[in-house]
């Protein structure tokens, strides 16, 4: 037994799969200790905030300011404020002015501004240029000049008595604050989703729930399959015929269709995560039962089983002691595959809107469902669905790797 375990942990496939899987499990356990926010709390007023560090603006004014003279700070500021639309308009004017298009690089902010400042003339008119166009270019020029100004911004409060603005502070362009001195900073590594929830916190809670669903489904499926397989394989005869008839019935009906029908008939209110897990387990025991049965049939006439019979042991004792240990490795492998297929089944079911009800817990499938309904994939909000896909893929991948690794140990002929 110890020897087998050592061999399993020497198989590179298993070790890689096990590392990925334990990393996922550890993250799921440790992350909520450090970030104890409720995963379904709506924190953002608006949908799909981009990933990043969110610094409270009000607090940042009150934080102590430092003056740093940094080269290139101005051009960076201008570059970040000049959007692509403005740049294209500037290019259009310059081309109309007679500068060849290939000499204008709209991504080089400094060169573009230089060209603009040396050449722009509000009185100039090109053929086909309307008054509205001219006014637009003048406005554009004003905003560009505004960007270039070095005046400080003024912070004012409304005087309660007179209603006039009273200046309280001036923010210079060289003023800096230290982020660690700002009272409220929220890091959203994966932004927010359509409801304005923190995607990372939600994702980790969802991974936990999905893994639990997978485990429960795997345990239910393996238990049903194991018991039916053992009984029908060992007893044979009429019992075997009846159990195999039921098993074949379940085999010919695609289990996913059965899953959809059962979860639809349960109804939205009754569908908790646990119920879904049990339903998934109930529809996926078939192959375990068949495989266990065939293994047991080949074992039941072995001499050690006969010897155990001759030693006067009961059927239950023989099944548990003389049959089960011989198929245990196989059952463990099947169990791991059941977990990963349970997680995938939950994801598939939730995408169809037949997963657990949405008010209590997030699951990986539900997150995909929400992202799909709110068109995150069309809007290009990758953070709402891509991490979920990666997580599902990693879980399934690690489980299959572990399974392959164990397979190589238990079936030495497969070893390369």
């Amino acid at each position: 037994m110890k020897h087998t375990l050592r061999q399993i942990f020497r198989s590179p496939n298993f070790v890689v799969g096990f590392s990925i899987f334990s990393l996922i499990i550890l993250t799921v356990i440790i992350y909520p200790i450090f970030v104890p926010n409720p995963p379904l709390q709506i924190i953002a007023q608006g949908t799909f905030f981009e990933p990043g560090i969110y610094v409270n603006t009000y607090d940042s004014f009150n934080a102590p300011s430092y003056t740093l003279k940094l080269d290139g700070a101005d051009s960076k500021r201008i570059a970040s404020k000049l959007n692509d639309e403005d740049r294209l308009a500037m290019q259009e004017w310059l081309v109309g002015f007679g500068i060849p298009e290939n000499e204008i690089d709209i991504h080089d902010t400094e060169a573009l501004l230089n060209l603009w400042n040396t050449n722009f003339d509000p009185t100039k008119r090109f053929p086909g240029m309307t008054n509205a166009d001219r006014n637009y270019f003048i406005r554009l020029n004003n905003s560009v000049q505004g960007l270039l100004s070095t005046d400080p911004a003024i912070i004012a409060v409304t005087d309660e008595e007179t209603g006039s603005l009273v200046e309280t502070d001036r923010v210079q362009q060289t003023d800096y604050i230290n982020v660690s001195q700002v009272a409220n900073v929220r890091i959203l590594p994966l932004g927010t989703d359509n409801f304005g929830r923190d995607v990372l916190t939600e994702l980790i809670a969802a991974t936990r729930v999905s893994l639990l669903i997978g485990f429960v489904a795997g345990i239910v499926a393996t238990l049903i399959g194991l018991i039916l397989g053992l009984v029908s394989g060992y007893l044979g005869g009429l019992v075997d015929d009846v159990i195999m008839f039921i098993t074949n019935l379940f085999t010919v009906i695609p289990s996913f269709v059965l899953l959809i029908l059962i979860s639809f008939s349960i109804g939205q209110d009754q569908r908790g995560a646990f119920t879904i897990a049990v339903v998934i387990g109930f529809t996926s025991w078939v192959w375990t039962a068949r495989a266990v049965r065939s293994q047991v049939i080949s074992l039941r006439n072995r001499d050690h089983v006969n010897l155990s019979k001759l030693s006067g042991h009961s059927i239950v004792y023989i099944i548990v002691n003389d049959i089960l240990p011989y198929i245990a490795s196989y059952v463990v492998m099947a169990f791991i595959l059941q977990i990963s297929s349970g997680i995938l089944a939950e994801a598939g079911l939730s995408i169809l809107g037949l997963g657990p009800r949405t008010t209590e817990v997030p699951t990986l499938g539900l997150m995909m469902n929400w992202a799909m309904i709110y068109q995150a994939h069309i809007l290009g909000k990758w953070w709402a669905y891509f991490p979920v896909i990666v997580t599902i893929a990693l879980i399934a991948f690690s489980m299959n790797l572990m399974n392959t690794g164990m397979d190589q140990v238990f079936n030495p002929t497969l070893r390369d």
Partner: protein
Amino acid sequence: MTLEKKLYLSAKGVSKVFGFGNQKTVAVDNVDLDLYEGEVVSIVGESGSGKTTLSKILLGLINQTEGDIYFQGVKRDISSHAKKREYWKNIQAIFQDPFSSYNTFNKIDTVLLDCINMRGGKYFPREKKIELMKEACSFVNLKFEELTNKYPFELSGGQMQRLMIARIFLLKPKILLADEPTSMIDACSRATILDELMHLRKEIGMTIIFITHDIGLAYYVSDKVCIMEKGRFVETGTADSVILTPHHAYTKRLINDVPKIHEEWDLTTV
């Protein structure tokens, strides 16, 4: 002589058919067998002649298709687990392949303790159980101290088969069914194991059914020999009469097939 002895086990018209229709295989065909107290009966035949199937029927591990088996003059009843258990107190077996005869997940102690439990020693004090196991092991020239807490696969084939005999020593059945106990073992250990088996027979007065394909071995150990061909007993009689004056062609063939060293190499000239 035989009339005075008690009839232990008898089979009347036992047949076993596997499959049906075109796939039908008759493994045992209308076999009659009488086994008297203290006898050693050999069943000899080539591979596939139905010896092992017959032994399993006699053991009650598989059911016969036709025929009846009488144990001590009464028709055998093994319909429930308790009755089977009672039957198996009287009849035990040694299997052909020692390597597959043990559950590799159980320690050797478990194998021997099972036998003590079966003989009603379940509530013996621990010291007495160990005493019994030591006695059984030393009977077959094994050291219990070396075996305890070991797994069967850590032993050699000969040791495993001797452990099997130690098991029989603890169980003390009336009938032992030895299904080719020496076929997987080298020639040196074979003689030791046969001697130990015969010693055990004297010690506890067992009746033995010896199943083998080796007619020389059958002659060496048995009082009575049954020659089996394609599920049928073709010749039955005392060992001397069957081996020395064979009547059936199959028996003659079996005897002629025994390798004879002196005809091949004349060892005296070396």
